[in-house]
């Protein structure tokens, strides 16, 4: 009895050891040394920053997103690795008393708009479908490179979303919603195709914690500005501009990020402490159970900055010199410079084709609701007049 008991115990221990070893093998970074095990194995960083609100009174959402964009750029992520989606243009809005600016502090201290802000999806292009296409990579082939998320299995991605939300959904542009299930499925598709190494998801909306409840893919860490049932509040109105400039949670996160520089060693536990209930009124939440590493070993710059792995080149190869050819080609180039032909524009638009286009045959669509309703009314009146009497047994 005792023998079988200990045998079964040994078997379970063996099984758990095997499972653990398989689990660690399945992790995408296998390092020999213990120190390297705790470091992230990423080689590049991406950021997807989304503002989902339209209209002037949602100024603060655009200011939130642009401030995060500024911090992320300051800490090193280049524009080619940032996908910025803004649903409305506050800087050139006719109601903006200070055109071409978006302020994030009252008394107009800090203008987060400028001439080096590269918006990838603007205005009506910010839709749920485009957002999901960016995340999953299922983009039509004609999309330019700046609108794509070209991450790979060694990319750490930061996703920041802000706008109006509710329990389990986030509103896009006042006309659509994205639910937490769709978001979780999109992340699962990213994981299946190994489009990220680790993902940090930050959301600043009302009831934001409901958006990360349904995640089930590994290596995701999530932060939200408020729990289910709570509202996220805005920070400060500016009397000159007339709207609220920032949301509280993002304001304090940005204050925290101002102290981070590309070489700092601050970890995620400090980010979780940002904006306690006394300052934020709502209770920020976070979720780390899907994340493999301990948050205290995760540096802020793993997601917000972009530190590249660099190696010194120690070896060279030997090439043979061809010095005579070099001199003669130099002389040729000098002569070429004088004989350059005049430049002209290439043919860009097939104007003749456009002008003389034949009208396209439109596809046939079935009749819409109004036509159907009208005909139903006409038919009912007809039957009423001519009295098909047994119809009254049915209706």
């Amino acid at each position, binding site marked *: 009895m005792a023998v079988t008991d200990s045998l079964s115990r040994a078997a379970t221990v063996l099984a758990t050891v095997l499972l653990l070893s398989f689990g660690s093998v399945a992790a995408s970074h296998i390092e020999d040394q213990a120190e390297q095990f705790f470091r992230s194995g990423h080689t590049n960083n991406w950021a997807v920053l989304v503002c989902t609100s339209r209209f002037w009174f949602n100024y603060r959402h655009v200011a939130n997103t642009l401030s995060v964009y500024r911090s992320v750029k300051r800490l090193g992520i280049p524009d080619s690795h940032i996908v910025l989606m803004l649903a409305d243009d506050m800087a050139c809005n006719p109601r903006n008393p200070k055109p071409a600016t978006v302020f994030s502090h009252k008394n107009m201290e800090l203008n987060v708009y400028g001439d080096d802000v590269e918006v990838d999806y603007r205005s009506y292009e910010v839709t749920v479908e485009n957002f999901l296409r960016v995340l999953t990579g299922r983009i039509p082939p004609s999309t330019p490179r700046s609108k794509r998320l070209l991450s790979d299995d*060694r990319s750490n991605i930061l996703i920041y979303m802000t706008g109006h939300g509710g329990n389990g959904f986030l509103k896009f542009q006042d006309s659509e919603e994205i639910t937490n299930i769709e978001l979780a499925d999109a992340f699962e598709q990213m994981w299946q195709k190994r489009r990220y190494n680790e993902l940090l998801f930050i959301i600043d909306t009302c009831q934001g914690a409901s958006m990360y409840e349904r995640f089930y893919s590994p290596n995701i860490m999530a932060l939200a500005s408020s729990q289910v049932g709570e509202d996220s509040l805005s920070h400060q109105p500016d009397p000159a501009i007339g709207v609220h400039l920032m949301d509280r949670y993002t304001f304090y996160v940005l204050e925290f990020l101002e102290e981070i520089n590309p070489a700092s060693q601050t970890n995620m536990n400090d980010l979780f402490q940002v904006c306690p209930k006394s300052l934020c009124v709502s209770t920020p939440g976070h979720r780390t159970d899907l994340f493999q590493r301990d948050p205290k070993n995760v540096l802020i710059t793993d997601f917000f900055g972009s530190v590249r792995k660099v190696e010194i080149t120690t070896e060279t190869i030997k090439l043979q010199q061809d010095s005579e050819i070099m001199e003669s080609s130099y002389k040729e180039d000098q002569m070429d410079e004088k004989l350059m032909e005049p430049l002209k524009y290439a043919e860009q638009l097939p104007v003749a084709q456009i002008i003389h286009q034949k009208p396209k045959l439109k596809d046939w669509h079935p009749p819409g609701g109004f036509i159907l309703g009208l005909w139903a009314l006409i038919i009912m009146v007809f039957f009423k007049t001519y009295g098909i009497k047994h119809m009254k047994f049915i209706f």
Partner: protein
Amino acid sequence: MAAAGAAATHLEVARGKRAALFFAAVAIVLGLPLWWKTTETYRASLPYSQISGLNALQLRLMVPVTVVFTRESVPLDDQEKLPFTVVHEREIPLKYKMKIKCRFQKAYRRALDHEEEALSSGSVQEAEAMLDEPQEQAEGSLTVYVISEHSSLLPQFCPPFGSMMESSPIPEEKQVQLSWEYRLPLFFDPQEPLTSLTPVSVGYEITFSLLNPDPKSHDVYWDIEGAVRRYVQPFLNALGAAGNFSVDSQILYYAMLGVNPRFDSASSSYYLDMHSLPHVINPVESRLGSSAASLYPVLNFLLYVPELAHSPLYIQDKDGAPVATNAFHSPRWGGIMVYNVDSKTYNASVLPVRVEVDMVRVMEVFLAQLRLLFGIAQPQLPPKCLLSGPTSEGLMTWELDRLLWARSVENLATATTTLTSLAQLLGKISNIVIKDDVASEVYKAVAAVQKSAEELASGHLASAFVASQEAVTSSELAFFDPSLLHLLYFPDDQKFAIYIPLFLPMAVPILLSLVKIFLETRKSWRKPEKTD
């Protein structure tokens, strides 16, 4: 009269009941299946069983090896044993618990006449030239020439093409076999984790940039076209089997590095230490324009001529010593080299000083970096083996073979995981549409994976690599087709919300009338019982 009226009402009631029943019958028998069929997500058939079979695919690589013995190297009695063939299998462990079986098919034979002549010539170069011409070496095959100890070729190197020179005084079979154990791993050692190398792609874009932050002091001229034509293009032609390469170049003025170098008074020069190097790349990258170039992975090679105020500029390694090449590289991105202007050119000259860049020195470093970025590094040499340096092209055929083997295996692994994850996703998320062209891409990918595995098992490396690239391309096309997102954001509760307002008003009268008919019929059955 009343009886006739009652009979007429009764008739109407019966007709009404029949009409109601017919309505219900049409709705349930015809309408429900029609609605179900027209609203299900279209899924063309996919070879699920084959996809799961791919996961269990055992990769076998075959290497045809030919061992050629010259006359003097083998004693006569052993010579009679030739020619014969031995097959030797070995498992090579890769990372992630993957193992591939390598099959070395060794054919031992005597040297042919022209080979004897070639091997008795004085120098390795002549021998190479003579051996190279008559035979066509297929990629992935290896030829070993065994020469006698007294041959004049020995003190020189193992030649660069797919052959090795070896000497053994008495080539007993056992001895030769032992030497295989440590020689052939030369070809299969994955030293770098595959993921930090340049990703496998159909094409690559290589950009050479000259950064001149101080045009007032330096008028830099570099003959990049000539250098590309003479040094880079042959290298890329040799590497051509690994993908299509396109090269471009640019000159950027007033482009600074993001880091301020420090002054070292001991050598009166400026230096960048190793910890500040990672921060150099990002500020520069936005100005390179690499994102607009193409959709292929881009490798950037930057030549930085430091400004007069910060000349000369050296890169220090972690021990504080200046690096000989004055260059560093970043995996998956490219390399940067700092080119210091010779102080002699400043004497008695008016600024700006004309600087002619020594392209040979620069290209030596850049091509070495390119090799490292692709994972072509110096292997661990077993004892008693000397390796000659690369040829004028910068790439040896056996290095290319190694790269192709590694890439083929990686391609097959990637294609298999893509197809498997597509199958898993289709099982998990029921909303994904699979159109016919996506299905045909999946079939193509599965066929290409199987073909590539077969080619690897029969030792044809070039066609195996091409098939593996096809497999990756087809599987990526299938997975990332934009049509797969079509219905993805209509979860089930939204679907119910759309259908209920349409079907409920129609269904309620039908159900109510059915219930009424059923109750009346039950009443009429009970009535005769009561009277009885």
